[in-house]
């Protein structure tokens, strides 16, 4: 039962219009294959970097986008500023829909929406001095009449971001600054036109440990003084906890959990959030839980898993989570790692054909030649060895059909966001209609 994702507006907030409303936003990148592949296969693969995100940004809040690398955080952040063209969906900002606006008109809106980049070493033009670089937005938007006026504004802004005495920095080139100073300059350039929204894409991840906290404090201070709304992108939960009012956890282009920071950290609801929190090193040194990330790796965004895209890694996955042929292959791989070379040599020829099985199929048919019975037995053995593997909840039936073995999976359902307390979470565990025994 795919619940239609509701908009994240609680009753008390609905009176005030959100600063920006993102509805069903999708950004898909076409990966162009080789010329030959395009001739033969028609089209290349599509990477679903952002795949159906719904968020309402409140005025003055700090919203964290948290997720592993590749989960689409940067793409979402860039889409908010109109720097990538969304494939579909809406970004409502005032009366404008940024998702549909032509570049020409977007340019004038850019004054209000700004970005702080991950790599301060690359974000400044190496051949432009700070006075010119930071003052350039003013001149682009014609907010100053003369060069001297721009310089004066730059001087004020430099003081504001802590590059003092400002006169010493005005004529410097980026190469003459340290990483932290560069990031301050980037922030200065972002705020000089008086923006409303600042998207900060991992602003401290490439900085020296010693200046990270200072940059975050500067951003908080600026947020207060200038009435900024932040979208803070990070893979680091510790800084998100420190910095954000609300946190959205992203996984493979979707928001899987979003809510107030305290509740997310105190009572994480999505299994992925739980796993992320366990992996944070020193959130709570007393706690003695194993600090492991979920098993397996983040899947290829070009071929995301069926159903809940977290299910191949989810320790709590159950029947409706979207089981498919690929999971069977992954189960055997885990089995061989556990049992060693001998088992691999013995069993691989039997299940070999599973490698060629296509992704989204709720049924898989393995032609085992004359050894169908052997394969069925092997499957039963695997189940008996690891009966707790969530995969077996998803296997509906194993039957032999002539010379082939057919494994049928239960139909998968794509989880939508559901409200639990103050948090919205996309997981079947929290859907009372699906999860009777959990």
């Amino acid at each position, binding site marked *: 039962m795919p619940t239609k994702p509701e908009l994240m507006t609680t009753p008390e907030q609905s009176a005030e219009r959100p600063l920006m409303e993102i509805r069903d936003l999708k950004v898909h990148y076409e990966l162009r294959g080789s010329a030959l592949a395009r001739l033969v296969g028609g089209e290349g693969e599509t990477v679903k970097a952002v795949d159906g995100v719904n968020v309402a940004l409140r005025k003055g809040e700090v919203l964290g986008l948290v997720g592993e690398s590749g989960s689409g955080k940067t793409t979402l952040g860039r889409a908010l*500023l109109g*720097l990538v063209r969304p494939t579909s969906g809406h970004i409502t900002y005032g009366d404008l829909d940024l998702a549909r606006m032509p570049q020409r008109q*977007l*340019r*004038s*809106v*850019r*004054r209000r929406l*700004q*970005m702080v*980049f*991950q*790599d301060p*070493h*690359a*974000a*400044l*033009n*190496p*051949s*432009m*001095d700070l006075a010119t670089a930071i003052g*350039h*937005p003013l001149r*682009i*938007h014609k907010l100053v009449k003369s060069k001297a006026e721009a310089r004066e504004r730059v001087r004020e802004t430099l003081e504001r971001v802590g590059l003092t005495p400002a006169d*010493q920095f*005005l*004529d*410097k*080139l*980026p*190469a*003459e*600054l*340290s*990483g*932290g100073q560069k990031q301050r300059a*980037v922030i200065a*350039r972002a705020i000089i*036109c008086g923006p409303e929204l600042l998207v900060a894409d991992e602003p401290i991840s*490439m*900085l*020296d*440990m*010693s200046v990270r906290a200072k940059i975050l404090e500067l951003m908080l201070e600026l947020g207060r003084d200038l009435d900024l709304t932040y979208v803070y992108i990070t893979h680091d939960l510790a800084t998100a906890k420190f910095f954000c009012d609300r946190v959205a956890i992203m996984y493979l282009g979707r928001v899987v959990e979003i809510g107030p920071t305290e509740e997310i950290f105190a009572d994480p609801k999505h299994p992925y959030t739980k796993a992320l929190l366990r992996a944070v090193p020193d959130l709570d040194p007393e706690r003695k839980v194993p600090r492991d990330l979920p098993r397996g790796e983040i899947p290829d965004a070009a071929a995301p898993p069926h159903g809940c895209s977290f299910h191949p890694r989810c320790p709590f996955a159950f029947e409706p989570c979207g089981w498919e042929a690929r999971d069977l292959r992954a189960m055997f791989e885990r089995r061989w790692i556990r049992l060693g070379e001998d088992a691999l040599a013995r069993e691989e020829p039997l299940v070999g054909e599973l490698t060629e099985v296509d992704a989204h199929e709720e049924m898989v048919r393995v032609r085992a030649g004359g050894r169908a019975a052997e394969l069925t037995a092997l499957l039963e053995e695997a189940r008996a060895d690891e009966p707790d593997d969530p995969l077996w909840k998803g296997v509906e039936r194993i039957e032999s059909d002539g010379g082939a073995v057919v494994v049928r999976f239960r139909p998968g359902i794509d989880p939508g966001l559901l409200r639990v307390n103050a948090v919205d979470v996309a997981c079947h565990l929290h859907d009372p209609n699906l999860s009777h025994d959990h």
Partner: protein
Amino acid sequence: MATVTQPMPGPGRTPVKGSTRVVRLLRGIARPYRNSHGVGRFMLVTGTVLVVLMLLTAVFAPLIATFGFSQVAGADGQRFMNHAEPGAEHIFGTTTQGFDVFSRVVWGARTAVTVVLLALAFSLFLGVLLGLIAGFVGRWVDRVLVMVMDALFALPALLLAIVVAFLLSEYVGGGASTAALAITAVYVPQYFRVVRAATVSAKEQTYVEAARAMGARPATIMFRYLLTNVIQSVPVIATLNAADAILTLAGLGFLGYGIQPTEAAEWGYDLQRAVSDTGAGIWWTGLYPGLAIVLLVMGLTLMGEGLNETMNPAIRVRRLIPISMPELTAAQRTKAAQVPERDRPGQDRPVDTGGEDRNSREPGSGETGKGGAA
């Protein structure tokens, strides 16, 4: 370029508004000379000296030359002897037509410098502009421009120059600008290629996206953000091309498609006239113009290769500066070993290995090697 990695000297430098830009420019020009060493430095300095001498000759030609370039008679109205041997009156002798060889050589320097500077200006302007547009805009604009430039590049340089000179001589005449335009056609594709390649890589840089994010127009991005970073590889090619251009100019003159003798003195033309002299043992008419060509070409080549050596990190071997560290005491050593990996400072990247670096590496030195064609 990698030379920027060195922090700017002079911590006590107090920047004075406005003059910093000039200071920075001068420093940029001085940088290759300060940073070069060994053979590179020798080439750079020797080349520069030769080129500067030639430039001075060109500028002060009216003062240096004893006669006009087409003067065949002295002030007293008496005609010069034809084929006069080098002597007191004509230190390099005279030619078949009775021209003073020394004066022809000096005026020839002025012609060569004028034509090459004009050609450089034209081809830099066209090549850089088109390369920038093709690299930045991409799509069909890029494809069409690349095709045209590749076609030009495929033609032998001298042949192309002759065709252009021939076509233009109808309309523009046989002067310096015709020769310059003919040479321009030869060198535009090289600047185009190098600048296009640098632009393609530079436009993926974050600072270009930052410019977009602040609302800059495409033209602003191209000229304020990309241009300054992609032209850094141009000086090397420009110097090497200038050497090549001298040869092309002389080639045109030698074949009779260059500057007409009535317009200016030109070494290639003089060489051609001197060909028949050599059999008669008249060596001076050919030797001096030939020597002038060799010296200027050599100067420019040495300068270009020297620049290449110091500025192009791909082939440059940095001089190793020995660093002596104070000896660790035993106690310090054990302490250092105990610091766990993730607590060690210095995750910050070293100051600037940034954009410039990558851009200037892009065009390989191979791009400049068209000289053999002329």
